[in-house]
């Protein structure tokens, strides 16, 4: 079958060109959708969640120079670093900054004996065994995993907590690489 040049031009104009345009636009549309999906999953992961009380590490760590274990008292004796009991907060805040809204919230929690439900920033899946105590004993500085918390108005997740992230550090420090060390 042969076409005249005029017919071919018509086919080019009415069929081929729109088809290519459609294909190109669809391709870029898919890429944009993928980008949006990545963005949404990043947003929903909530790497720096809002907290019920806006506790500023900036003031307590950087301005007052409190050591981490002044509040996170279990960090060198347990798997979990632990959030401090409200008594700890109130030992200073019965007197300090009592007029601030966030401190009033804290005081209400204390009076009503209602614990503050902090939102988790770091969490590990159930099949991972992790102990703060071990890492503190091995003299891993808190900032190596948690970053410069003293500069964070709102704490954000710094390390990925993925297995490769753990293993790299274990390897460099000569710590155990045995599966059963972390997967008990």
């Amino acid at each position, binding site marked *: 079958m042969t076409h005249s040049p005029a017919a071919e031009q018509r086919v080019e104009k009415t069929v081929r060109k729109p088809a290519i345009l459609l294909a*190109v636009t669809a391709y870029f549309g898919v*890429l944009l959708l993928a*980008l949006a999906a990545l963005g949404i999953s990043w947003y929903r992961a909530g790497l720096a969640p809002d907290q019920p009380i806006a506790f500023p590490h900036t003031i307590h760590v*950087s*301005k007052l120079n*409190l*050591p981490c274990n002044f509040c996170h008292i279990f960090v060198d004796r347990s798997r979990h670093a632990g959030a401090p009991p409200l008594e700890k907060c109130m030992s200073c805040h019965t007197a300090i900054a009592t007029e601030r809204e966030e401190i009033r919230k804290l005081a209400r929690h204390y009076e009503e004996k209602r614990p503050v439900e902090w939102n988790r920033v770091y969490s590990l899946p159930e099949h991972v065994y992790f102990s703060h105590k071990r890492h503190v004993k091995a003299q891993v500085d808190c900032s190596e995993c948690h970053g*410069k918390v003293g500069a964070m108005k709102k704490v954000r997740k*710094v390390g990925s907590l993925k297995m490769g992230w753990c293993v*790299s550090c274990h390897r460099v420090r000569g710590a155990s690489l045995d599966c059963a060390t972390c997967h008990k």
Partner: protein
Amino acid sequence: MVSLGNLQPLSPQFYLLLRHGLFLVLFLHLPFLGLLIGGSAVSLLLNFLGKEKRDPSYLRFSQELMGTVLMSKSALFMFGLVPPLLVWFIYARVLFDASPLPWQFWVVILAVLLSGFALLSSYRSARGRALDLSPMSAATGAAGLLAVILAVFLFSAGYGILFNPGKLPLLQKQVRFFLSWHGVVKFLLFLAFFFGMTGGAILLLCGRPAEGDEGAEAAYRELVQRFGANLAILATLVLPVFLLLDLVTLPDIALSAEVFVSSAVVVLLSLAACLTLFLSDRKGEGGPGARVAFLFVLIFLVILLRDDAAVGNAYQDQIAFLHMQAPVAELVHADEKHREKPAAADRVAGDAGKVVFEKSCAGCHRFDIRVVGPPLNEVVPKYAGDAEKLKGFIRNPVKVNPDLPSMPRLGLPEEEIDAVARYLIEKAKAGGSP
């Protein structure tokens, strides 16, 4: 050997200046290398095609292209070799941690670049002399091309480190940590940009008419335009894919809404470039060359702005810390400087001590009344002017009065303890008020 890596950023402003400077340098350096890589690669490919098909117009195109992309030796020096030296210096300060990349790393990059430039220059002059190129000369060109690509790969790996501060402590212990998937993706992204820009440059600059048969000239121009357009189209299709992979491999702390939005802008700009190429009438004068080249430069600019924002996110806490530290550090520093001159020393020590007091003590202590801790006018005189004893207590507090909460160990640096102890004794002696 003096290590540039031990330098610390002086102030938040200086830090920002350096970081933006880094991206300005890259904005000049990488497109330059990109044209060199894309141009030489296409020139070598055309040389091969021309020989296979026995078509001299391919060889002529190959020659013209090489003459276009490889500029003078001074341009090679200015845009090819000086920027990595600047980046070397900027890295040392922008990355905060000491010695992030050993000097050997940069020396290797420079050496590889230099040898690549030399080989490509020799290929270019052989290419310029005759249409028919000896296999030896083509091999020289290929070796030069590989060298420059290797340099860009190493550079991209080093560039990837910028976005992942968590890796720096590991990198200091083992050099192999400079390799990362993110660095590899950055390399591929750069390559896609390089070839896209080369395509745009071919459309814009190549296919210049020469004396001769008009029909043959039109055919040559058509060949050049088709080649340039296909190369650019391919790049517009591939580049956004690498951009998405880049987002996937970027560490979470480098991400922010800005990073996602600017990525979307890059995808849309790629779409614009792609449609420009498809819709333009390639045969007519004033083809899409200028528009496409401009769009690629814009794409690269947005990619760099995006990377600048990502580095800012990754180092957000360190920068905030810099802001918080600046005033105290300056005063303590001034205190140390003036220590030899006793008269001035007391005054400045007073200032430094006051700053430390307000930073670290005033939250719990006042001189006149009890806050959390006891009033200082009551407890400081117990030390009877013995600064050493007071410094011992600040260094390692013990509970004295069971009615009060225990004072935490603050872990202040020795010079701050010294300044604040002298300030307290001085102030309490004078019966200081707040």
